[in-house]
């Protein structure tokens, strides 16, 4: 069993891609069904994109931290930033779609918004 994933990048589109690829590699190293790996990458990418596009909108670019761990029954993935959470507007076409993907595929979703940053933690059942 490979170790927990714990990696960070700058909140920009290029590092978002690298974080996603790193997660993909980590997931491929675990004995997980393809369907689950697809779902986890889809949802995590949306959480990372949310941080890249919104967290540091009126401030200097900051970091995005990605962690993932595997337990016997779960995969838990969290995406954190040190910026400001902005609730999606009511007619948020694309951003609403991104958050919708996260809520559709994860067994549980926790959005922890604090003055010092936001953490979106998603949990997936492996069984």
């Amino acid at each position, binding site marked *: 069993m490979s170790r927990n994933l714990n990696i960070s990048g700058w909140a920009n589109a290029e590092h978002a891609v690298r974080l996603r690829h790193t997660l993909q590699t980590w997931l491929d190293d675990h004995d997980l069904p393809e369907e689950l790996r697809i779902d986890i990458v889809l949802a995590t*990418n949306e959480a990372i994109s949310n941080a890249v596009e919104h967290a540091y909108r009126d401030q200097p670019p900051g970091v995005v931290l990605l962690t993932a761990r595997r337990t016997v029954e779960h995969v838990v993935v969290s995406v954190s930033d040190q910026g400001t959470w902005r609730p999606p507007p009511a007619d948020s076409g694309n951003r609403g779609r991104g958050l919708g993907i996260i809520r559709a595929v994860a067994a549980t979703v926790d959005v922890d918004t604090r003055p010092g940053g936001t953490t979106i933690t998603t949990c997936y059942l492996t069984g």
Partner: protein
Amino acid sequence: MAPDETPLFDDRSSGQASGGSAHADGVEIEAERVDEGVVLHVSGDLDLLTTSALTDAVAQELRGSPAALVIDLSGVGFIASRGLEALVIAHQSAGEGVVRVVVTTRAIMRPLSLTGLLGVLRVYESVPAALAADTEPERSGS
């Protein structure tokens, strides 16, 4: 922080949005002219970094008012909500039935299904099927 934390990527300068890094070519789009219209063969990933290339290619082809514009996603390994949005915009900005999307993999079918876009976009299981279709809606795999 956890004891096994990996350090930050240390190449911050290459990560600026304006930089022309190698990552910017994470997608390739090839336009093929056929009797029925145009096929855009897309390969790579459609995400924050690359989707604008598809948006630009679609806009360019639609200026020629093709009878059919097929967006072939057979070679795409990953599509983010930004990419889905580009497909919706393409669909909405063309005439009825003009934009047709070819999906052959679970990695692309899954997000289309999750977001309800299978009921919005014209999705086909192959390029020939997409080109042969008239303007009636059809679903891949049916």
